């Protein structure tokens, strides 16, 4: 029988690995629109991590800022500038 402590630390480790993969994809992706989406996935993993690490007040600030406002501001920036890293459509 798995104990609650092991379950909680297992979920934390899984969220860490998900965020690591999402960060890797976000940094290496050449389409900036997809990079923003991967960055939002990573922020969602961090939001669950804050909740499990007993910081619910951080969660209330972090979810609107990192899942809502960061992608919105960067999408606005991509709309004003260019979409592909290293020039348009090579």
């Amino acid at each position, binding site marked *: 029988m798995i104990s609650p402590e*092991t379950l909680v630390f297992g979920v934390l480790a899984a969220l860490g690995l998900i965020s690591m993969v999402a960060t890797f994809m*976000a940094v290496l992706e050449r389409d900036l629109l997809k990079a923003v989406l991967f960055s939002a996935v*990573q922020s969602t993993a961090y939001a669950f991590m804050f909740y499990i690490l007993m*910081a619910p007040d951080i969660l209330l600030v972090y979810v609107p*800022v990192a899942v809502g406002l960061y992608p919105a501001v*960067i999408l606005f*920036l991509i709309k004003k*500038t260019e979409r592909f890293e290293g020039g348009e459509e090579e």
Partner: protein
Amino acid sequence: MIDVNAFLFSVLVFSLIMNLGISLYGIFWRPSLVKKIIALTILGDTANVLAIVVGYRAWIAPNRPPIPPVLTTWKPTAADLSKFSSLAVDPLPQALVLTAVVIGLAVTVFLVFLTIQVYRLHGTTDVRKIAKLKG
């Protein structure tokens, strides 16, 4: 016998440190300014999560989790306070991170404004092309 909980916690800390490394790579070696801003937000968030992880505490028993640092009574008795101090996680990193999240948002909006100005003046967000410009 390997300690499973310590191993899983090490996996968490390892993935956070890998995130720091990957986002530093994105800041220093990716050419696009937009990609640099995305990597900077990831770097700031990872530093915040590391601060919260430092403030977490060990479980006193496998079925007694730590509690959030919130007192739920108006006039706490000595028994309430001793239960609080033996179970609650550290509130100081949470107070610091709460401020850092908001400051990070302000810095990001400022950098977005600067990048829009660079694109209006030079017509590109590629630092390799901006470095070759004269004047």
